């Protein structure tokens, strides 16, 4: 599998070793400054109505005001709680089903067709159905987020358990490991890189859909709802501030949560470099 995300992390980290930190900062900041300057020029020229195309000062001041009033953090916390609840649900179910599928051929035969049918349908397409079944609000949102992220977790856990080298299993058995020890000390660590990939993909999918679902599910708090609600009043500045928070959370999820977990486990065990 050729995947750009891991390559990118290495490439971004590499030049820092040879260049001074300030140069890297300046180089990274430069494109943002150019875009910001263009934005300002267009906004101040008044080509578009200022309500629809606010200046960056406006967006910034709205951002500061809403953060100080605690409105923006409240929306963000609600969104994150939904993400975590749905994701936790998916992680428990997905890893369990994936391991069962990897270990027992009966489970594999039964679940694989079901999972293969469910996986290719984009999760957000289920949103109205979930709203119909579970009502508007948080329950539907959490269930849908869990439903969406469960598929990559199942697939990757299943692949990971099957990819554990036969020779490790056999040598552990030859050294007298019982089933429980075999599972804890061989299969689980062996499958972990895949499981982590699955969790990462699952969380990314959940995140991509959550904001959209919040718009549809009419939840009382949440960043998606903030953006969607602001449209009614043409508060483009509020919307852009909301989008900025969404971007920050997304970046933080990727950099803080997953790269840490990966460093902590599989890299330390020498399973991946």
């Amino acid at each position, binding site marked *: 599998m050729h995947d750009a995300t891991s390559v990118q992390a290495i490439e971004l980290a590499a030049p820092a070793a040879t260049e001074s930190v300030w140069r890297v900062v300046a180089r990274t900041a430069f494109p943002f400054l150019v*875009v910001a300057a263009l934005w300002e020029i267009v906004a101040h020229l008044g080509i578009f109505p200022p309500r629809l195309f606010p200046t960056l000062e406006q967006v910034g001041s709205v951002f500061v005001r809403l953060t100080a009033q605690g409105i923006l953090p409240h929306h963000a916390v609600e969104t994150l709680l939904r993400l975590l609840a749905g994701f936790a649900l998916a992680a428990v179910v997905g890893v369990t089903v994936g391991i069962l599928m990897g270990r027992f051929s009966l489970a594999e*035969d039964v679940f694989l067709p079901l999972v293969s049918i469910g996986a290719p349908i984009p999760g957000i397409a289920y949103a109205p159905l979930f709203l119909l079944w579970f009502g508007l609000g948080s329950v539907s949102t959490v269930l849908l987020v869990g439903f969406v992220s469960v598929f990559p977790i199942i697939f990757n856990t299943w692949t990971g358990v099957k990819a554990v080298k036969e020779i490790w299993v056999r040598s552990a058995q030859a050294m007298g490991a019982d089933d429980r020890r075999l599972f804890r000390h061989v299969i689980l660590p062996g499958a972990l890189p895949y499981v982590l990939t699955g969790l990462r993909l699952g969380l990314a999918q959940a995140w991509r859909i959550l904001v959209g679902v919040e718009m*549809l599910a009419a939840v009382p708090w949440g960043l998606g709802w903030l953006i969607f609600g602001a449209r009614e009043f043409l508060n483009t500045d509020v919307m852009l501030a909301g989008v900025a928070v969404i971007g920050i959370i997304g970046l933080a999820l990727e950099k803080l949560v997953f790269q840490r977990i990966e460093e902590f486990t599989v890299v330390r065990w020498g399973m991946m470099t």
Partner: protein
Amino acid sequence: MIASVQLRSLRRGALGLLVAAAAYEIAARSGAFPPALLPTLPAVGRALVTGIADGSLLLHAFHTLYRVLCGFALAIAVALPLGVLMARFRPVENFVLPLASALMPIPSLAWVPVFILWFGLGDLVAILVVFYAATFPLLLNTWSGVRAVNPLWLRAAGAMGADERALFRKVIVPGALPFIITGLRQAFLRSWIAVVGAEMIAASNWGLGWVIFDAKEFLNADVMLASLAVIGAIGLIFERLVFGSLERATVLRWGMVRAAKT
């Protein structure tokens, strides 16, 4: 031996599907849930057949496909050249990469309300959301693909007298193609999600996402499930037939990647 194992898998798989379908059917017929919310499978099948027979479902699918393909084509036109430029020229990379890394974590659906304000309701919103969703995976994969081209090939081709154009067409593009195809796949998956979501939120009058959302108002769960089936089928067709055959015709035939063992 192998055939009998496969046969057993097939039998068990079919049995699993049948049991799931039967469980659903029993739940639907038990009367514990209102039939409008949990239609029986024949009712869903009927909705699917009528939808296809009177052409409405096909027309919706056509609108969705039109939006997704426009956005996707736009993304290809922008992301592929930009990815190649990023990989070949350092200043381009220094400029584009930070912007891409900052924009990528924002889900495309978060832009839908903003785009509605800017561009009004209609096709353009959905097309731009698809464009946003598809651009980044394509851009990053093209970039890493071109960078991953074996430098030995470049030097060998240079030593054999290839000029820039020949080098690009005969070495760099084929060398980066496995990555680019992966990028196309990821991009399509994301655009497919984005278009359905955008159609629901931006409520135009046509499109598979809109059908599902609209059916909610009238409690037509059978229509919803039928449209879901169509959405899944189109997604699967693209994934397997379009990208699968693209892969077989290029990188698999050239022996750049091997087919999965299963």
